[in-house]
């Protein structure tokens, strides 16, 4: 499309997403005003609740950790122009992997348990993404539809495992037993205490945050510094060109989905092992879907994903505070999430074309 060519690269990666997000926030503000609350007060309350104390920061960072994993998962797939809506199911299966590893292997120390859980979560998540990836690569089944179907199949499978296999006898609650105490991960409170920084003990933010940040670097390195990453991006730019250059579409599709699923599955290390210390039915709580918004907003770049995950971490913690102190329900955040997806993903051209026109006018005047 010609219109996009006329936008300088810096504006494409900063201005376009910022305008989209501003539009989403503006509509949300109108909605808050329409239900009889004060948008300005709401923003103040959200900022205060998520950044005003180490307690608030702790929850913001905990949510952001989840969203970094799922956002990276969606981004890697998007780079190969594969739309993986299955992050939710892959994270659920990752949770199952983490739970099996933690329950059935007697870990002597949390460091080993962490490594084991990462392998368990990543392998289960990757395998759950492998089937849709394989079906797309070998049978031509549309990956969007199969990953949606696999989300539902994952939910049923997890329900079966929790009710019929993992649930301790004599309990009603469909959840696994608690993991042994040796597997408990150090919280951010413990880590910061080592260097003498006081931090709230309450929020569930834990060492997985550092793993998530490391994954952002790892994904960046993979995509821009390795041969496979180059092939993934080339395949995403143009499938026929990539094939002409000797890149096998089937191989790239399957590899990309494996990496994507593994990243989604890793989320369970934070939520299942880091927070709940057991597997419950709704262990993912929509974080797989938020990954879509995070990836779109972050322009599929790991650094963008990091920033967008922080923004959504803030929205989730701030939204919980809003629901606590005002008449604004938590679901407002779902609306904001939907608007971010709509403007940055689907109505991209609506934002892009006027910006391109502005730049064209500026250039015409400069001449």
């Amino acid at each position, binding site marked *: 499309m010609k219109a996009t060519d006329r936008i300088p690269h810096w504006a494409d990666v900063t201005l376009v997403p910022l305008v989209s997000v501003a539009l989403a926030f503006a509509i949300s503000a109108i909605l808050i005003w329409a*239900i009889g609350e004060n948008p300005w007060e709401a923003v103040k309350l959200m900022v205060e609740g998520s950044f005003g104390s180490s307690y608030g920061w702790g929850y913001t960072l905990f949510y952001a950790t989840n969203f970094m994993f799922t956002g990276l998962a969606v981004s890697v797939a998007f780079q190969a122009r594969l739309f993986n809506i299955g992050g939710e199911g892959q994270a659920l299966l990752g949770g199952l992997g983490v739970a099996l590893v933690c329950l059935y292997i007697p870990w002597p120390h949390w460091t080993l348990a962490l490594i084991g859980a990462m392998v368990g979560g990543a392998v289960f998540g990757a395998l759950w993404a492998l089937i849709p990836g394989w079906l797309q690569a070998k049978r031509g*089944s549309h990956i969007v539809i199969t990953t949606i*179907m696999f989300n539902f199949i994952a939910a049923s499978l997890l329900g079966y495992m929790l009710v019929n296999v993992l649930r301790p006898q004599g309990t009603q609650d469909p959840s696994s037993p608690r993991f042994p105490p040796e597997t408990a991960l150090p919280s951010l409170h413990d880590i910061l205490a080592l260097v003498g920084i006081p931090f709230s003990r309450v929020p569930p933010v834990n060492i997985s945050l550092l793993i998530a940040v490391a994954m952002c670097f790892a994904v960046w390195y993979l995509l821009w510094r390795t041969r496979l990453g180059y092939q993934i991006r080339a395949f995403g730019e143009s499938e026929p060109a990539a094939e002409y250059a000797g890149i096998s579409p089937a191989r790239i599709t399957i590899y990309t989905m494996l990496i994507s699923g593994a990243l989604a599955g890793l989320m369970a290390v934070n939520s299942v092992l880091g927070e709940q210390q057991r597997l419950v039915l709704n262990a993912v709580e929509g974080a797989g879907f938020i990954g*879509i918004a995070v990836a779109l907003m972050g322009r599929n770049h790991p650094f963008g994903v990091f920033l967008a995950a922080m923004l959504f971490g803030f929205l989730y913690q701030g939204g919980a505070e809003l629901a606590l102190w005002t008449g604004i329900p938590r679901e407002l955040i779902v*609306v904001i*999430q939907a608007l971010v997806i709509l403007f940055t*993903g*689907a*109505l991209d051209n609506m934002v892009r074309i006027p910006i391109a026109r502005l730049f064209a006018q500026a250039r015409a005047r400069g001449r």
Partner: protein
Amino acid sequence: MDWIMVVQVLDSTLRLATPLLFACLAGLISERAGVFDIGLEGKMLAAAFMAAAIAYATGNVWLGVASAIVASVGISLLHGVAAITFRGNQLISGVAINFLAAGLTVVIAQNWFSQGGRTPSLSGGGRMPRLDLPFADALRDVPVLGPIYSGILSGHALLVYIAFLCVPATWFLLFRTRFGLRLRAVGENPAAVDTAGISVVGLRYGAVAIGGVLCGLAGAYLSTGLSAGFVQEMTAGRGFIALAAMIFAKWRPWHAMGAVLLFGFLEAVANRFQSIEILGVGLPVQAMQALPYILTVVILAGFVGKAIPPRAVGTPYVKEH
């Protein structure tokens, strides 16, 4: 399983298949015109809320149905603006619509009714009345025919019968009218339609709007016919089951009816039994819930006949200059 139980399960199969059928036909018409519609779930949810809210406020269920259609068509047009006018990603737009409906219905319901994101229970004129087919009472005691006619077919809300009438209507529209021919052509080869001087954009908007009306009916039946009021996330994945049924039926109306009846039957059985035994193998209820999705994946994989979507589905049409 005795006969009374069979009649009850089949009776509830028809009721559970109805919202699936409306939504499935909505997706079918939209995708036949070349527009992906994974926002069926969201449109149904928004319609379910509007139907229940307006039916409660006015005490008239038909006003509720009308507002459900308005809400659903409104969302369809938003999808149209994103997918057709601005040529955005149709799948992402659908995802956004699903979240938009999931969030907005609760925020608005909480604001209007303050009952934790639900509407008050409907009663009297706010609920969809049941229709008894003619001679249902007289035929009740006739063997075989009686249970089928009076027990299964009779005694549903009007929308159930409308849903099943929509099947031949959709077939006729798509395969026996000029509009239908053009609509299918626009889903296969929009450039050819454009060359013939027919508006691609207009046809696609038309298809998306028809889908909106059908999703409106699906949602309205869900909250005023199948249950008595709106609760958070009450569609519970039905939009995606409808999508699955559409693929299962390979985008054909009569087959769609078969698919939704099968999926409705599975849901009815899963609601009724915790586990069933088939040929000595115990089948857990979760397997029944997952079966529609598993079957769809198998069909998509082409192991049992290939499901080939309309050729132009998902690609925005860019006019050549």
